[in-house]
């Protein structure tokens, strides 16, 4: 049983169908993974990341949950689906641990982690995230209207006091 620690994956071709196969073979989504995309232009990087995001959708795996897939590049700082890091050093330290032989207690905890991972992997992430985004928009509009109402009530108070 392997520890869920960061590992680099190598991708040679970036067509969606081939990416699906490569990502499946290299266990992206089952472990925290990253790809280094240096020496690419902004356009190329965006194209590659869009293809990777499409491949993840085909694999029915989310690039953020349960284990993240990072793209290491310094040409862009944001992509809507794939988390970006500027350099390998900036990757989260949480997933960087020495890979030593596991002992009894550690194996027991890892077993529990694997059970949890299996439970989480089966969740419909894409569907829930898209519905959640709709809810977030409604919550923002609620925040705006509450702010407007507070302003109006304050104004009414001031007008009443000035009479």
């Amino acid at each position, binding site marked *: 049983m392997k520890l869920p620690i960061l590992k680099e994956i190598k991708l040679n071709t970036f067509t969606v169908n081939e990416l699906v196969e490569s990502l499946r073979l290299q266990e992206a989504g089952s472990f925290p993974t990253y790809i280094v995309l240096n020496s690419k232009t902004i356009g190329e990087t965006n194209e590659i990341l869009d293809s990777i995001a499409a491949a993840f959708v085909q694999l029915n795996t989310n690039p953020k949950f349960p284990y993240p897939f990072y793209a290491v590049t310094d040409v862009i700082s944001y992509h809507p689906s794939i988390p970006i890091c500027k350099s390998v050093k900036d990757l989260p330290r949480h997933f960087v641990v020495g890979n*030593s032989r596991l002992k009894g207690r550690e194996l027991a*905890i890892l077993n529990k982690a694997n059970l949890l991972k299996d439970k*989480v992997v089966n969740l419909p992430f894409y569907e829930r995230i898209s519905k959640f985004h709709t809810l977030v928009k*409604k919550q923002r509009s609620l925040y705006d209207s*509450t702010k407007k*109402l507070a302003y109006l009530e304050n104004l009414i108070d001031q007008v009443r006091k000035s009479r």
Partner: protein
Amino acid sequence: MSDKNPKKKVIVSKSRLKDLEGFEDLIEEFYDDVDVRKSTSKDQRINDFETLNFLENENLRLEKVNIAFNNKISNYINHPQSDALNEIQEKKIYHSEEELFTLLGDDHSALQQNLSRLLNGLK
């Protein structure tokens, strides 16, 4: 016999053990009650706990992801309150605006008085 007089465990550092390499059996043969052992370095012990700590934190993280997506977001999706609350807020805003315009439109309101002062001053 060995149960009554257990061997004394002599723990030596890694570098010292290197000097004694090959002589462990001889030392143990010569001194019957000595058992030469390698000490666990502090770094090694820290590494052991690092893995354990990482696994416990990882379990906690996965548990939180599970709760967030399985319980919390599901609850938000199945029992949304935003629409109803938005409607209440919109009604309150409408009534507040009406009240504000009535107050401002009153002859004795500060706005009316200031406006009349301003406009009368222009005459």
